[in-house]
């Protein structure tokens, strides 16, 4: 027993989440890393961040909340926090792995960040139809980053997504925990699930509140979300506890 305890302590000493992510990226070959270099990622974030700073939009803690929120992601990268690059790439790698394994006919992203899912990457990495909402990220891609280049992706009304009106042929929906737990439509999870065809998949990214879910357990809205996921009729679901966590829901 004491040997086992000693062994566990050694394991805990050796595992550093950020190092694990860095190693995972070094051991993988992803389209995101090939298409979006670190320099390109930094340049994209700089353009968006300094554009918004130039507009004097309020970026105080009261406005954007305390770290981590999506508003901190591009600020930290724009300011050169290189450790953050692997974190972003790792999150995208998780999604890419599931999407390529699923081999869908068409995929709908409910809220793809311009940091993790650049249009250039979504256009090149996948050989099936990709749908994204008409939202702030499309504005950033077309007007701020590309400075006038029209997106080649299919753009849909975000209100349609919120009402679970998904394009014909979509059999994979990529979303995240925040979108599902803080949506104006309280039944968004169930509605999107019902809109999918048989064997359709919902991929929920960032589904553990950066591991806080495991510490606070039932205090997190994401705990409630997973209870709802397990109640979906005819669904198989799998929660994978990486640093940012993801959950796969398969409609049987």
């Amino acid at each position, binding site marked *: 027993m004491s040997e086992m305890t000693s062994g566990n302590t050694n394991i805990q000493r050796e595992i550093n989440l950020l190092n694990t992510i860095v190693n995972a990226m070094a051991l993988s070959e992803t389209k995101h890393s090939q298409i979006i270099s670190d320099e390109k990622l930094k340049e994209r974030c700089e353009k968006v961040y300094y554009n*918004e700073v130039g*507009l*004097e*939009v*309020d970026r105080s803690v*009261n*406005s*954007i*909340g305390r770290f981590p*929120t*999506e*508003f901190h992601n591009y600020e930290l990268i724009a300011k050169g926090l290189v450790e953050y690059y692997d974190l972003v790439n790792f999150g995208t790698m998780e999604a890419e792995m599931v999407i390529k394994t699923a081999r869908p006919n068409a995929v709908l992203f409910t809220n793809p960040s311009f940091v993790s899912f650049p249009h250039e990457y979504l256009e090149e990495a996948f050989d099936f139809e990709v749908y994204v909402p*008409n*939202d*702030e990220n*499309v*504005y950033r891609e*077309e*007007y701020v980053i590309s400075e*006038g280049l*029209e*997106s080649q*992706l299919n*753009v849909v*009304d*975000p*209100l349609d997504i*919120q009402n679970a009106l998904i394009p014909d042929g979509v059999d994979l929906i990529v979303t995240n925990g*925040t979108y599902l*737990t*803080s*949506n*104006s439509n309280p039944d968004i999870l169930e509605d999107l699930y019902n809109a999918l065809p048989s064997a359709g998949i919902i991929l929920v990214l960032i589904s553990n509140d950066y591991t806080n879910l495991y510490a606070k357990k*039932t*205090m*997190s*809205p994401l705990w*409630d979300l997973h209870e709802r996921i397990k109640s979906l009729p005819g669904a198989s679901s799998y929660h994978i506890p990486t640093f940012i966590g993801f959950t796969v829901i398969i409609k049987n």
Partner: protein
Amino acid sequence: MKYDKSKYKEYIESKLLSIFYSLDISEDRLDTITMQEIREIVDQTYPILSSGSEESREIKSTRNKILALATESMYYYNLIKKREQ
């Protein structure tokens, strides 16, 4: 260009108005309210309880949902307004 400002603005406004409705805030405040004010109203409407009870769990969960939705919606709504100026 594929970005449609009017449709996106309509979407963001609908999200904000759903928050206003749940917090009993007048629609007239759309262009004047700040995120700080919304946080204060959320604090009054859903005060944090330290009991660890089921009630406190539900309140904390509801607070987090509203604040996440409000933070995102207010930031993007303010961005749209700044671009129009």
